[in-house]
Structure formats: structure tokens, C-alpha cells
């Protein structure tokens, strides 16, 4: 029974995550479009059909020092995300000792690190390689090295990792402090989740962490961290249209771009799914109980869409205080939890 459940979970949870995540960009885009008083694209267009279209495009060798490594990075990200969602399932709890918040936090760090690698491996036509004879004309400052947009983005990603992802980690560890365990399923069990049998009707008997003061504060800082790790507006300085166009992903074409899209969509879903596990106490389990999990996991993307429709891109001048402020909020939550 155990082995069967483990295998089924390992196969089906990523498949469900994969299918659901293709809807998320479309939903976000639709919400933003409606806020902007227009109709907007159909829901499946940005997430699903675009991916399929890119798979059918001609394969192109990217301009990069390590083309194969560059192309494999989004796939690594995609599998990392599926690994994270599997770590939060109760079926995996006995199998590996990895099913803790620390492991999830570490894998998210790796996910962020991928953007640095991407940025350093890409050499797009849109920046330095644009043919224009301006070096011969000369400026006052002669002989400076030229930096690609992607490298600028890599530097920004590094800054974002060091400062911007504090709120996410605080948001991850508030439940641990409240419940006294770093095991993810342990957090869910604390909120009334039953590992042996769980039906939809049991949801109303749960006592979600979100309905407590540390829970609310932790959830707010988790949401900010979610925006940062997604590089969604307002924290999209890594790939803002104002200067670096698309940043690290400029060279992805055809199937590599499709895999990048999938990675991003998976990030959107999985991060939100982790939030539901931690703050609502509903981990992804096979069966009907997956439906409320998936529905609740839409909360964060929808909130992100609304927030991003009303905010400009923030520069580091605003990101540092904002990030530190929300970290402080999370710490207040932890203090409440200890009290």
C-alpha cells in the first residue's frame, strides 16, 4: 500500500501540477487585462498554446559560451519545482529525510541561482551584439568593457537573492516556529490534517494557521517573497522592459523557451501550493482532496496579478526598504508565535 501510494503520488502530483500551472499565466493576464479595461487574451493562450507553439519551432543554437548548459537550465528548474511539490506530499515523508522546510528553502535558493547562470551564459543580439558603429566614435570614457543586458540581470538577481528573498524564508519558517516542527507534514498535522484518511468534508474541521496573528503576518511576508522569487511586478527589475528587456532569458528560443515558460508556470503553482500546505494545512494528496488544494493555490497568483497591475517596477532604492520591512513583519509574526 505504502509503495503503491508513493509511486502514484510521484507520478500524478507533478502531472497535475503541470496541467494546472499552464492555466495560471492566462488567468493572471486576463485579470490584468480586465483591470486595464480590455478583453485580453484567451486564458489558455499565454500558458499553454504558446508553449506548444514554441515546441514546434525551429531549433536554434543559442549564442552562448555553453549552449547545452544554457538550454538545460530551465529543465533543471522545472524538475526542481516538481521535486519541491513532491517533498510536501505526505507520501514522501517516510521515504526521504528531505521533507522539511529547510530542504524546500534550499531548493528555492537553487531555483533563484539558476537565473544567475542563465544571465551569465546568454549573449543576445539585443544588447552588445547589435551592429552599430558607435565605439569608433568614442566617448570621454574610452576602452571600457561592455556588459550585456543579461549580465546586468545576473547582478540584479544576485542582489535580489541576498536581500529580496528574506521575506520568503521568514514566511516559510513562521509555521515552523508556531508548530515547533520543521517537517512539512508535521505543520499540516498540527493544523488538523489526518495523514491516514483525508476527505473533502474534513477541510472544514481544519484549523488553518492563516487565521492566527503570526499566520497572517507570515502569510503577508510569504506573499512578498512569492512576488520576489517569481520576479513578478513590482519586483521584476531583473527583467524589466525599461532597460534589460527580458534579462537572462533573451536567448531562449523554440523548445528551450517552451521549457522556460513551463518552469516559470511551475514556479507559480508550486510556490503557491507550498503556501496552501503550510498555511491552510492541506498538503497535495491524491484523491478528491487535491481539488481544494489546487483551488486554494490559485489565491496567490490572482493576488499577484492584482498587485502587479497597480504597481510600477521598483528599483533597489525601494526594494531594500520594502523587503526589510516585510521581513520585520515576519519577525514580528515569529515573536507572536513564541509568545
Amino acid at each position: 500500500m505504502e509503495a503503491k501510494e508513493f509511486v502514484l503520488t510521484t507520478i500524478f502530483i507533478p502531472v497535475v501540477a503541470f496541467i494546472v500551472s499552464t492555466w495560471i499565466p492566462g488567468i493572471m493576464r486576463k485579470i490584468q487585462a480586465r483591470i486595464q479595461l480590455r478583453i485580453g487574451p484567451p486564458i489558455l493562450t499565454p500558458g499553454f498554446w504558446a508553449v506548444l507553439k514554441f515546441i514546434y519551432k525551429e531549433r536554434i543554437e543559442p549564442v552562448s559560451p555553453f549552449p547545452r548548459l544554457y538550454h538545460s537550465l530551465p529543465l533543471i528548474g522545472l524538475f526542481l519545482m516538481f521535486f519541491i511539490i513532491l517533498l510536501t506530499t505526505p507520501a514522501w515523508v517516510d521515504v526521504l529525510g528531505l521533507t522539511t522546510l529547510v530542504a524546500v528553502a534550499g531548493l528555492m535558493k537553487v531555483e533563484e541561482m539558476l537565473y544567475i547562470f542563465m544571465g551569465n551564459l546568454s549573449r543576445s543580439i539585443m544588447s552588445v551584439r547589435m551592429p552599430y558603429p558607435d565605439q569608433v566614435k568614442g566617448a570621454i570614457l574610452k576602452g571600457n568593457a561592455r556588459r550585456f543586458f543579461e549580465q546586468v540581470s545576473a547582478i540584479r538577481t544576485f542582489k535580489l537573492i541576498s536581500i529580496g528573498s528574506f521575506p520568503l524564508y521568514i514566511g516559510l519558517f513562521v509555521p515552523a516556529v508556531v508548530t515547533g516542527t520543521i517537517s512539512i507534514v508535521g505543520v499540516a498535522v498540527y493544523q488538523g490534517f489526518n495523514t491516514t484518511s483525508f476527505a473533502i468534508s474534513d477541510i472544514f474541521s481544519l484549523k488553518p494557521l492563516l487565521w492566527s496573528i503570526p499566520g497572517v503576518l507570515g502569510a503577508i511576508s510569504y506573499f512578498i517573497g512569492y512576488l520576489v522569487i517569481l520576479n513578478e511586478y513590482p519586483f521584476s527589475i531583473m527583467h524589466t522592459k525599461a532597460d534589460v528587456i527580458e534579462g537572462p532569458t533573451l536567448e531562449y528560443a523554440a523548445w528551450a523557451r517552451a521549457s522556460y515558460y513551463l518552469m516559470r508556470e511551475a514556479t507559480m503553482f508550486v510556490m503557491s501550493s507550498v503556501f496552501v500546505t503550510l498555511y491552510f494545512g492541506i498538503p497535495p494528496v491524491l484523491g478528491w482532496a487535491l481539488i481544494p488544494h489546487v483551488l486554494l493555490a490559485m489565491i496567490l497568483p490572482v493576488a499577484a496579478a492584482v498587485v502587479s497591475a497597480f504597481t510600477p517596477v521598483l528599483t533597489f532604492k525601494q526594494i531594500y526598504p520594502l523587503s526589510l520591512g516585510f521581513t520585520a513583519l515576519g519577525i514580528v509574526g515569529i515573536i507572536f508565535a513564541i509568545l
Partner: protein
Amino acid sequence: MADVDRKDRAEVEVPLGMVHSALLEPFRIRLFVDDEVVVDAEITYDTAHRGIERMMEGMPVQKGLILTERICGICSHIHIWNGTRMVERGLGIEVPQRAHHIRVIGNEMERLHSHLLYLGHAFEILGHETFSMRCFMFREPVQNMLFFLSGNRVHYTIPVIGGIRPRCDIDKDKKQTLLAMLKSLDEELKAFGNRVINDTLIVSRIKDIGYLSKEDAIKYGALGPNMRASGVNFDWRIKVPEYKDNFDFEVIVREGGTVLDRVACRLFECLESIKIIKQALETLPDEEPINVGYELGRMGYSTSYNEAARGEIYDSCSLDDLGRIQSYINRTPSMSSLSAMEVSCIGDHLTDATITIVSCDPCLTCTNRVTVVDENKDKEYILEPEDIRRLARRKI
């Protein structure tokens, strides 16, 4: 400001353009950055050079003036109006007052749509897609008004020598419709402006960046709203008789000199434009809109200044015996505004530098048509960007 010590610390150069999401038009920006702070900037703009003044050489003046409109697709009316005005001044042609009114209406509508376009573009670069879409939503009725007035959305071709084209004449029905269209726009724009000025995040992005002091604005020749946002109180509309004698409006001057002031200045100017259009429509004299009783002939060197949406515009040319254009010169405001922006973006973050450069509302297709005619050496040459820079910035 640009102090020498900082310049030595420039680590790398980040080139932007020619095809770029923030610039739209083809031009090249080289930003010299220390970490991500801009220590020096260089803007090169010669990619859109099409040699329009050369083409006009020897053209019949009526034909050439239509070509002036193709200099720019945003501020097309002011080019043809200023060219026409120059010829009318040079030859002493009487223009009916009704034609003046309709030309002013065209120019103010153009200012409206240009400023709204600018705001939309600025918000797009700030990353605020909703406000940018809102601006484009406001702009669409203005475009409809222009279409309704003249029959084209971009190249309206309202003025001809001696008056305006009969198809652009405003009859009673047209007047009522235009007034009705304006009324709702006025209120909506006011509400929107309030929202922008009170949006904390937007203001925090644009508040203290791109500072251009009054002295620098004069020194580097920022023009139009960029100049007025730095506290220089000058507007060609208070000197041009078409405006001065007939309409009552305020010149918006702000003291700050930052991007916020440039944005706010344009927002308020939109409201002033609506005010002028309303006045012009209400006081439209009842007469023939065109005076056809003129003769073209030799015209000496004639000039005309006017206030375009982006600032001062200058046209000059002379005509030969058959009324053909000789040495047409058109100077547009973007060029000197851009050189001012080269200075004002120093010291800001890389992302702020692009919004600073865009905040001067560059119109690159207007720019780079400078021809210097050296009378003594009897030759003409196109001023290269480095010459412009040398003249405008380093040597002074």
C-alpha cells in the same frame, strides 16, 4: 552632477538600443555605469536620418510643405503649420482669423495626444501597465477628434498657404460634436491626474531622479515642458500672435526639475490645451477659412518660431522666383532636450536613467537634420552627433 572623480570610476558600459523596448525609436544610448549607477551617458541619434531637407531643395513650396509633415508622425501638424506660417510671414500673405483658430485647435489637439502618448509611454517604462493603458484609452478619443476634424489620424494636413484646407473647416455640427467630446475628456483627465500625483509607488519612483537644475536647463538647452519643469518660464505661445491675441491660458512652470515635474507639467498642460480648444471653438469667427488671393514669388530669408508639444520649433527657408524652396532648415526641440537629459541622468540607477531619458519626450525622427551652411567656405555639411555634443556640452 558630473564630477570628474566619479567618471574615472566607470566600470563598464551598457549599450542600449537601437531596437529596444524602452526607446521604441531607433537611437543608441551608451550608459557608463559604476555597479549600476550611471556615471556618464552618451546618446547617439542618427539612425532615423532620412535627408528630408535635402529632398525639399528645389521643390515647389506647396509640395514641400506637405513633406514637412512627414518629418514626424506625432507632431505632424506643428511642422506644416510652422512651415506655412514662415512662408506667410515672408510673403506677407493675409490669413483669415478663422483659419488661425482652426490651426490652433489642430495644434492643441496634437499637444493633447502627444502628451498623453508621452504619459502612456512613461508609465510603460515605469512598468505600470494599467496607467499606461489608461493613458492610451484617453488618447483614443483625441485621435478620433482629429480624425473627425481632418480625416486622418496622424497626418492631418490642416494648413495650406493662405488658410486651411476646406475639408478641415469646422461647421456647426462639427463644433457641437467636438465640444461634447472635449467635455468628458476634461473631467476624466483631471481625475486621472489626481490619481497619478497621489500614487505613492509611482511618485517614489519618479520623485527625486533625473534632476535638471535651472542653470543646466538653460546651459544645455532643454526646451518646452522640460525647461518649464526646471523653472524657466518661457513658452512661445505667449509670443506667437495667434495665441497671444486670442486666447487666455496659463503657462505651467514647476520648480522641481525632476522626472515627476516633467510628468506633472505635461499633465497640467493637457488641461490648458483643452481650455484653449474650448475657447477657440466658442469664439470661432464666421468667415471664409482661406485666402486664395496671393502670389508666390521670390522670398528672402524668412523664419518662424512656434511652440510644439515638445518645445520650440524653428523653420526657415527662402524661395526663388518660381516659388521653389531653397535651403530649408527645420530645428526641432528633441535634440537639445536630449543633450540636457544626457547630463540629468547621471547619478541615477540604470533603470531610472532610461525613464529620465524618455521623460524629455524624445522624438528621434524629428531630430538629426541639422545642416550647417558655412557662408565663407561655401559648403554645407551635416552636423554629426559628436559635433553636436562638442558644441552643446563639452565646449561650453
